[in-house]
């Protein structure tokens, strides 16, 4: 079996499993998994920049929030239905990502991290500042009536799961296609050795900028879908912790792997969920688990699987 067939089989298998789980999971986990799939899209977007291109951003909440508010504002101010509102979110994400990329990519390494962090904080403060429109910290609810897409009620658990699944599947396939395309391979080359990539004739800045835009747009898609499917838009999603989450998920699951973001998100979500059942000090348990993983699986869960067993994992 060729590597390509194995890749299709494994990732197709995961999608089939997620689709099948819809019919057997109890309501609680069913709802969780829909949430995890949307958040995994956020992590996959983050991974395009961090895992494949080697750009460590500390400001991805800016893109997640751009998508969420682009969608939410379209609904609130323009009375848009879910489909055009989603597109509004995607456009907001792409525009913000292009602007941030054009500015932040003039820096590198630690400076890049700080610049992205600062822009995200500026975005967060802007949400608060324009509180009369955004409703600031308090946020606003997207009503059930506003979540009807072509007669489908997105607030219904089954529809919500399907919508999350479709978004997740599309983004997973897009990432797989991207990283195996010549363009994606140049991104990896830039991550591995930027100077060498430049001296092979590749326009490093242009490739990085496109990576930022793709990453930001996918993160925005997650933010828009999250607001739409779970019915709430608020400033918390623009705060710094939402910039740190995707970094953690990707590190845990395996940076630069297509499945890592999903596995990392799933793992972290249930780690906190289960440990908070046991003790109120659940962040302590989560913290210890993170330290242990960092010590014994520094490449993340899927990263370790790749380096030990399945070398062909994309």
């Amino acid at each position: 079996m060729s590597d390509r067939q194995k890749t299709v089989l494994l990732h197709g298998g995961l999608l089939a499993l997620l689709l099948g789980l819809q019919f057997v999971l109890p309501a609680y986990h069913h709802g969780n998994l829909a949430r995890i799939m949307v958040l995994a899209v956020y992590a996959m977007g983050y991974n395009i920049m961090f895992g494949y291109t080697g750009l460590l951003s500390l400001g991805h909440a800016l893109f997640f929030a751009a998508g969420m508010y682009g969608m939410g504002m379209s609904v609130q101010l323009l009375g848009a239905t879910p489909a055009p509102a989603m597109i509004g979110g995607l456009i907001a994400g792409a525009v913000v990502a292009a602007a941030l990329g054009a500015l932040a990519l003039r820096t590198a390494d630690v400076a890049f991290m700080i610049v992205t962090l600062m822009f995200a904080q500026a975005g967060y403060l802007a949400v608060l500042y324009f509180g009369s429109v955004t409703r600031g910290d308090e946020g606003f609810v997207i009503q059930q009536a506003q979540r009807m897409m072509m007669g489908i009620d997105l607030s219904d658990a089954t529809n919500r799961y399907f919508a999350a699944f479709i978004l997740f599947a599309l983004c997973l396939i897009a990432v797989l296609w991207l990283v195996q395309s010549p363009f994606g391979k140049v991104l990896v080359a830039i991550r591995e050795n930027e100077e060498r990539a430049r001296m092979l004739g590749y326009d490093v800045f242009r490739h990085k900028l496109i990576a930022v835009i793709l990453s930001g747009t996918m993160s925005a898609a997650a933010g828009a879908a999250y607001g739409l499917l779970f019915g709430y838009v608020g400033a918390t999603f623009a705060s710094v912790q939402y910039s740190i989450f995707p970094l953690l998920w990707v590190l845990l699951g395996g940076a630069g792997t297509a499945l890592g973001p999903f596995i990392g998100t799933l793992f972290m979500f249930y780690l906190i969920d289960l440990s908070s059942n046991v003790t109120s000090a659940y962040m302590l348990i989560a913290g210890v688990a993170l330290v242990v993983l960092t010590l014994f699986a520094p490449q993340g869960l899927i990263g370790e699987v790749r380096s030990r067993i399945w070398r062909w994992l994309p």
Partner: protein
Amino acid sequence: MTLLSTRAMTKNFAGLTAVNAVDFDLPKGEIRALIGPNGAGKTTFVSLLCGRIEPTSGTVEFDGADISHLPAHKRINLGMAYTFQITSVFARLSVFENVALAARKRVHGTAQVAQAVHAALDQVDLNDRAEQIAGDLSYGHQRLLEIAMGLVQRPRLLILDEPTQGLTDSEIDAFKALVRGLKDTTTILLIEHNMSVVMETADRITVLNFGEILAEGTPTEIHADARVQAAYLGTG
């Protein structure tokens, strides 16, 4: 016809003049060796040619056009290839992928890229290691991989910065034959310390010393030049 020329090319590093007002002409189809003592400015000079570093002053012309203000990747796309002195392969990628990254600028399509990669790896006798991780190769093999990455681009000007460093005697012999075989299609600028490689492959030699051209001529002329002997070759 001149493929590459520089006028008054100068580079200062914080008060140290590494390259000083160099006028250099390289005719099309020539194999030119660039020699000189350590610190003479050889690597700095070729880095100025391909745009890796910015000159303090001076101009570069390539194929009749002024490229002084082009960024490195655009110069490479005009048909220059540069192999690094300190091996700079993509250490965590496979040998195949390293060469494929270089090939994809020129050829498109999976099958065509694979064919070009295997042809280039054949030229340096690395085909049986195509699936290995580049960082696992010996130093000498990484040098050969660098050369393959240069060859697969089919450049008009190939700049080789100390390509035979770390190669075995038999690999050096194979390298000499390879360079002579490229003569019809490629202009080559070769920085080299191994004098047997220089004498047997170069059409002409340029000697740099303290950032300036000390002498230029055929291997025989250079070998006989008293100033070159004093500065570099030694009197033995």
